[in-house]
């Protein structure tokens, strides 16, 4: 086994002895893996667990190869029409596979709700009109109206598979773009799965992740409550929910991270590829020239249509 070495004075780096060749290696703080620059041995940093940095319970292994991640990213880059042409022609680079620390949240949720439920009914109306020969006639037509009734009640369910990023380097909104992950393929955490790959330690604490997970759960409950409402429609849905038996487990997810440089004066665009499904997420830049051109073209079409319509 490798020996413990000096703890970082500033928290910036750790100096550890390589288990392979005995050389001193520098490990950036916050990383869970390293590679010896002398013998190329991959190492996994093992630390005593503490409440802010617990041991991962699960890990999902990479399924998507580097080549496939690149293909998926190239296809994604070519797609957004409103992106600048230089972006759509750019080649992704700096491809890195990394294990991202996330928290898996599960709970039992109980909600109390109230809403107005719209129940439709049909009425037959009589109206007076003029027929094709100019005669005044009385006719009937049916109209659908809505009767609004109030409803309140309870709703219970288990909440599972809520995943939130524990990395300040890859925030939760970027992770959400490449979800879902198939958690049926979970492995119990083994440091061997991280070996040879970049792996981060959690840089966001469990309390903050719990708050984020509850926020995601709230949004999920809102969707599920909306689907739970009877009637033909509903409005004014209000609810309060509470969680029982909450659980938060640290796990490692596989993602490919790529950079796209499409102009010298523009910042790099980061793409994330789900290492299990190949789903690509990122924020493509917008070409304001294209957007203005489309708006102008639309306005011209509208003006021409109005002019043609007015001349008849």
């Amino acid at each position: 086994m490798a020996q413990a070495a000096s703890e970082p004075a500033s928290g910036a780096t750790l100096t550890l002895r390589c288990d392979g060749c005995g050389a001193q290696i520098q490990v950036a703080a916050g990383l869970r893996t390293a590679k010896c620059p002398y013998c190329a041995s991959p190492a996994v940093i093992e630390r005593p667990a503490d409440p802010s940095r617990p041991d991962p319970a699960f890990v999902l292994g990479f399924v998507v190869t580097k080549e496939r991640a690149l293909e998926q990213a190239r296809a994604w880059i070519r797609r957004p029409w409103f992106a600048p042409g230089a972006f759509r022609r750019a080649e992704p680079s700096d491809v890195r596979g990394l294990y991202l620390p996330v928290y898996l949240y599960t709970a039992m949720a109980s909600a109390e709700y109230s809403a107005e439920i719209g129940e439709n009914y049909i009425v037959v109306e009589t109206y007076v009109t003029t027929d094709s020969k100019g005669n005044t006639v009385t006719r009937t037509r049916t109209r659908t109206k809505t009767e609004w009734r109030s409803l309140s009640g309870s709703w219970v369910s288990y909440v599972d598979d809520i995943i939130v990023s524990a990395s300040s380097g890859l925030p939760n909104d970027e992770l959400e773009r490449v979800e879902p992950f198939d958690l049926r393929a979970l492995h119990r955490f083994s440091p061997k799965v991280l070996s040879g790959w970049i792996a981060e330690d959690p840089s966001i604490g469990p309390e903050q992740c719990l708050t984020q997970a509850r926020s995601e759960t709230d949004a999920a409950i809102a969707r599920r409550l909306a689907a739970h409402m009877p009637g033909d429609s509903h409005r004014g849905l209000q609810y309060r929910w509470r969680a029982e038996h909450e659980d938060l487990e640290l796990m490692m997810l596989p993602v490919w991270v790529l950079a796209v440089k499409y102009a010298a004066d523009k910042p790099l665009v980061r793409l994330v590829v789900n290492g299990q499904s190949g789903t690509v997420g990122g924020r493509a830049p917008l070409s304001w020239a294209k957007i203005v051109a489309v708006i102008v073209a639309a306005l011209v079409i509208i003006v021409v249509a109005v002019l043609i319509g007015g001349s008849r």
Partner: protein
Amino acid sequence: MTSGACTRCASPLEQGDFRCAICGLPTPKDDITPSHVAEVNAAVMRCHGCGAAVAYDVKAAAPKCAFCGSVTALETPEDPLEQAEAFLSFRVDPEQAKAALRTWMGGLGWFRPGDLRDGAVVDKLEPLWWAGWAFAAGVRVTWAADSDAGAGRSAWAPHSGEFGLELTDVLVPASRGLTDAECEALAPGYNLRDATAQPDPQRRALVEQFDVQRSAARATIARALTETAARHAADRVPGNSKRNVKVAVVPQRMSTRRLGFPAYVLAYRYGDTVYRAIVHGQDPQFVVGKAPWSWTRIFVIVAAAIAGIGLVALIVALAS
């Protein structure tokens, strides 16, 4: 094989589960090796075979030694093919099954051939244990629905409610040989306590395999639980007409048994056509299957009905 119970929903956990199949709570790990690390170190993961460093390999989907190529197995949730854990006993012998088939044929009604009961020839009788699950659970059910109770201008008014439900011995078919409708017709006649761990070899009956993995089985059973809860909820909605019955459930203490259910599959010939019927293996009153229609009798009834309508029309015409 169970391995303790979930601390959140009290459902039994099976060997190899990482998370509770009912509520999703992760199961505790037996040995938490990383927690035993006393100090920071950079450990090279070694191959058990040759001692060289291993790294995770995407194509192998596992840590692989670059030197000798050996792959390290990872601890993964077990998802085996389901196997029956008990077999309900046959209480009906083949002769009783044939007699039950004849009785069933005789009770099908006037639109069937008059000589069906005595004229049909049983070609084949195959005893089998068909595959199915029986589950039990306590369920907290919350529901919302529309009904005509309390309706105003619209024909519908919304209602909601909540109740607890104790489900026992709810049967969910897993059979590929029998249709769901056939299984459901036979289900009420089974005594789920009359089971043995091994099939009776004297019966020489076919044992249908589940042919489904544990994860898929759990999804099927969860759907069946929600459907059962919805049926119970529909019974509690006030009024006569109901629609949009929505349920949200929290199952607890959910246990599932994988069972083999005894039945006879019979092929019988009437005229030139072969029909299939299933006779229950424990209660011969339960028979389900297909049977021929008597088109002569149906034609006679239709002709008589038309003649009757014509006669009434004629009388009305003459009277007016």
